[in-house]
C-alpha cells in the first residue's frame, strides 16, 4: 500500500477519534442534549470500508453512526450542529446524533432501532437496480442486528434479486450491556447463515484499518462486477459505555482485562505505527484538530431551529 493511501486512512481514523473524544470531553457542559453512541475503538471499520466507496455510493447506518458519517465524508459542521440541536444541523436539529445524514455524500440516514435500516438499504439497492444506476449500497449494522428477524428477511431478498450490497457487520461483542454468550448459541456461525442465504461472507480484523481497506477493496470490486451481495464481519470493540461520554468498566459487565486487551489493539495506534513518519502525522493532525475545533465553535454559535419549521411537515 502506498504512503498516501496509508496517510489518508490514518486521517480518517484520527478524525473520528478526535471528534468522539471532543464530544466526550464537552458532553458535561450539557449543551449536547441528546444520546450519543461513540465509536471510540471502532474507527478502523468505518474508515477501511468507506475508503473504498465513491462519492455517489450510498451508505445507511445505525445509532452508532458518527464514524460512518465522518468516514463517508459527511459535513462535519452539520454533524456537530445536529448533536447540539441547532438549525445548522444536517436534519435541522430534528434528529440528533442518531439520525445523521448527508445526501450529497450518499449518507442516506441512520436510525437507532437495531436492524431497521437493513431493509431500507436493500430497498435503495433495489431502486438502483430498477433504474440501472451502478452505485453500491453499504449497510452498516452491529452483530446484535443479525439477531433480528428483519436481517434474515433482508439478506434473503438481497440474494434473491442479486442486489449489489455490501453488508458490514461490526461485531463489538456487546448489545448494550449484554454479551454474545447470553445472546447466541456457542456454535452459531454467521458465515453459515450468510452462505445458507447465498450471500458471500468474509471476516477481517476490524481494528486494523489497512487490513479492512484491502479486504473491502477486493470485495467491492467483486460486488460491482457480479452483483453478488456480500457480508463482511469485522471484529472490533467498544471502549466506552453503550450510550454516553464515559468509561464504564466499573460496571463489570465485561470480563476483567477484556477492555485492556482491546485497547492494546487500538486502531489509531496501529495505523500510526504503520506510517512511521512523525512529521507527516503531526502535520495531518494539526490540520484536522483545527477543522474539528472550528466545527464545535460553529455548532455552539449557531441558532436553534425556529418553531415554525415543524409546520413544514405533514402530520
Amino acid at each position, binding site marked *: 500500500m502506498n504512503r498516501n493511501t496509508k496517510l489518508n486512512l490514518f486521517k480518517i481514523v484520527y478524525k473520528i477519534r478526535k471528534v468522539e473524544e471532543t464530544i466526550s470531553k464537552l458532553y458535561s457542559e450539557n449543551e449536547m442534549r441528546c444520546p450519543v453512541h461513540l465509536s471510540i475503538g471502532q474507527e478502523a471499520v468505518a474508515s477501511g470500508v468507506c475508503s473504498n466507496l465513491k462519492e455517489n455510493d450510498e451508505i*445507511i447506518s445505525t445509532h452508532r453512526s458518527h464514524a460512518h458519517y465522518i468516514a463517508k465524508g459527511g459535513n462535519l459542521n452539520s454533524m456537530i450542529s445536529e448533536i447540539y440541536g441547532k438549525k445548522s444541523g*444536517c*436534519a*435541522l436539529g*430534528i*434528529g440528533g446524533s442518531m*439520525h445523521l*445524514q448527508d*445526501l450529497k455524500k450518499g449518507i*442516506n*440516514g441512520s*436510525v437507532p*432501532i437495531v436492524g*431497521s*435500516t*437493513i*431493509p*431500507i*438499504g*436493500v*430497498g*435503495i*439497492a*433495489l*431502486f*438502483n437496480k*430498477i*433504474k440501472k444506476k451502478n452505485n453500491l449500497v453499504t449497510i452498516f449494522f452491529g452483530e446484535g442486528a443479525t439477531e433480528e*428477524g*428483519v436481517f434474515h*428477511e*433482508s439478506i*434473503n*431478498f438481497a440474494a*434473491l434479486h442479486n442486489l449489489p450490497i455490501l453488508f458490514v457487520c461490526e461485531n463489538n461483542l456487546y448489545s448494550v450491556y449484554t454479551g454474545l454468550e447470553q445472546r447466541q448459541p456457542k456454535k452459531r456461525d454467521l458465515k453459515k447463515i450468510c452462505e445458507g442465504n447465498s450471500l458471500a461472507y468474509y471476516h477481517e480484523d476490524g481494528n486494523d484499518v489497512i487490513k479492512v481497506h484491502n479486504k473491502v477493496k477486493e470485495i467491492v470490486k467483486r460486488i460491482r462486477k457480479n452483483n453478488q451481495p456480500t457480508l463482511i464481519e469485522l471484529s472490533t470493540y467498544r471502549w466506552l459505555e453503550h450510550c454516553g461520554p464515559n468509561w464504564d468498566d466499573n460496571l463489570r459487565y465485561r470480563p476483567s482485562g477484556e477492555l485492556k486487551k482491546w485497547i492494546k489493539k487500538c486502531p489509531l495506534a496501529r495505523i500510526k505505527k504503520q506510517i512511521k513518519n512523525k512529521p507527516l502525522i503531526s502535520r495531518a493532525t494539526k490540520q484536522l484538530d483545527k477543522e474539528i475545533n472550528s466545527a464545535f465553535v460553529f455548532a455552539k454559535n449557531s441558532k436553534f431551529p425556529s418553531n415554525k*419549521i415543524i409546520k*413544514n*411537515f*405533514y*402530520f
Partner: protein
Amino acid sequence: MKEIKFSEAILEAIDQSMQKDKSVILMGLGITDPKSIFGTTKGLLKKYGVKRVIETPTSENAVTGIALGASIKGLKPIITHQRVEFALLSMEQIINQIAKWNFMSAGKQSVPLVIRMIIGKGWGQGPQHSQSLEVLFSHIPGLKVVAPSNASDAKSLLMTSIKEKHPVIFFEHRWLHDIKGKIENKKEVKIGKAKIIKKGKDLTIVSFSEALIQVMRIYNFLKMNNVSAEIIDLRSLRPLDEKTIIKSVSKTGKIIVIDNGWTKYGIASEIISMVVEKGFKFLKSPPKKIGIENISISSSRTLAEKTYLNSKQIIHNIFKIINKNIDKKKLNEFIKKNENDHTDIPYQDFRGPF
C-alpha cells in the same frame, strides 16, 4: 356511467397509475399468483413485467423497509397485505421509519408509498383474520389513512394515494370487493375529504368502509319512519374531515358514529371527542358510538354473529338518540323483508370462503 366491482376499481386504479407513471411499482405476497389478491392485481405482471410487479418472500417487515428505501429514491411502491393482520409484522417499519422519514430527514426525503390492507370479516375467519385495526395507523403522525366504502371512491382515492407525496395506508374491506358501483370519473377524491351521502336534519350519522353499508341498509326504514338522517361517509380517517362533521352537527345537534371496529379507544371515540371539544354548543343530546363488541372475534358463527353489529342494534340506537319510539311490528317486518339474519356473511346466499 359504467358499473364495476370495488375490486375491479382497485385494479383499474393500479393499472392506470402504472400506465401513467413509470415509477409506480407493486410489491406483495400473491400479487402474481392465480388469485392475484382477489383479482385486484390480475394481469399486471404480464403488462408491466417483473421489474415493476415484484412477487415477494413472506417477509412483511423487510418488504416494507425495502419499499421505503426504494421510495425515498423516487419509486412509488404499492404494498399489498391480504389481511390487515399480516401488516402487523411490519409495524416497526411503518411507525418508526415510514411515518417519520420525511420528518427525520427535515423534509429532504419523502415517502410516496401506499400500503393496501384488506380487512376480513365473518365466515369463520376468527381472531386473526377479521380485525378492523384502522385506528392503530390513524394514531400515527406522518401517516395518511383512507378507507373508502364504494367502487368509485376506491378508484379515485387509490389513484390520489399513489400520487401522494406521503405514505398512505389504504384499507379495503373484503366484503366490499364484490359490490358493484358506478364510477364517477369527473372529480378526483382528495385525501381528507368526507362525503355527505344523504342530507338530513334530525341527526348526523358518521360511518365508513363496510359499516357504512350496514347503515345504508337501514336507511329506508329511517325514511319510512320520517327520520331525516344526514349520513357522512368519512372516506379518510387521517386527516379527518372535522369541518364537514361539525357543520353537520351544527345543523342536526345529534350524532351517532357507527364504527367498523371496536368502540373503545377507536375511530368513533376520536370523532366524538372531537365533536365534544369543538361543537359542544351544538349538541342537543349525548353523542353515541356503536361498533363491534369489545372482544376478540370467534370463528364459530353463533359466537361471531353476536360480536358484529346488526341492523336492529343500529336502528334502536338511532331511535334512542332522536327520542322516538319504534313500531316493533314494522321493524320486524322490515328486517324480515330486507335483511340477512346472519351478521357473519355479507348476504343470505353467500358461499365461502373469502
